[in-house]
């Protein structure tokens, strides 16, 4: 082996061959098969990750929408509860004195009360 000049740009075949032999790996086929099998798993995982991301995004949007809908529904129900009125309340509020007496009397109305109520309606 010739001593080389500093920074010799040529490969040294003898040293290269000796190093290659020293580092030569075992049968390549099992290694290649192993790498390709792992690559399939990696691909499968990469395919799965976006799916989960999308589902997570959907879930986040869904939860936000559900919360908003619940708030709106709660608000509406609250308003409805506050303004709940019976049929009698409505009729009494919109009726005249005769109808008022007719509706609010605990006893069965006599004919004069019914007549007064009808006359008020005609007016």
């Amino acid at each position: 082996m010739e001593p080389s000049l500093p920074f010799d740009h040529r490969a040294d075949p003898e040293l290269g061959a000796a190093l290659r032999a020293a580092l030569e790996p075992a049968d390549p086929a099992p290694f290649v098969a192993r790498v390709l099998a792992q690559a399939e798993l990696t691909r499968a995982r990469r395919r799965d990750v976006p799916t989960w991301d999308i589902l997570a995004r959907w879930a986040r949007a869904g939860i936000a929408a559900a919360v908003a809908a619940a708030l709106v529904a709660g608000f509406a129900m609250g308003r409805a509860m506050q303004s709940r009125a019976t049929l009698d309340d409505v009729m009494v509020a919109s009726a005249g004195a005769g109808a008022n007496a007719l509706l609010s009397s605990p006893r069965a109305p006599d004919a004069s009360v019914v007549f007064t109520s009808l006359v008020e309606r005609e007016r």
Partner: protein
Amino acid sequence: MQSDPPAQLPGGVARIPDRDEAELAARARAGDRAAFGTLVERFAPQARRIARAVLQNPDDADDAAQDAFLSALVKLDQYDPRRPFGPWLMRIVANAATDRRRRRAVRQAEALEPELAGGGSRPDLDAERRALGERLRAALAQLPERRRLAVVLFDVEGYSHAEIADILSIPEGTARSEVFHARRTLRSLLQDWKEGE
């Protein structure tokens, strides 16, 4: 001062044309399993040698080389097809091996087998080669990691100084210097071996 890679690698292995590599990489990136398989088949021996130069232990080296291939598969969109694929991949291999070495306490002493101490009867040719291999691996293990990678990339894998500089992320002059110093050590060892025969 050349930097062009040779058309043929040491050991008579033909260098894969860059365009071919780029096309295979593009197809692999698009999900072509066969193209990725071809790249793995072509570069597996080289990747395993590079990883072994760092890690010494062949099993660790194979794990690192596998990590590197899988990492390359994920990063294929970062590969610039105008540049050769080999240095890009070997950079990933070298990094994967270095990372693994850092994670695991690799005892370099494990690479030194007691076979070397054996005197006695003259070994046959295979045993001689094995013993030389052991000595070379032991000598490589004594070199700083970057130096041992540089000499393996240059003399075994046929990369140019510029490509080695790119792979190891060092200036080209430093790559030359590393190859030079590694060669000096290893040649001296080889010389002693031959004289001792």
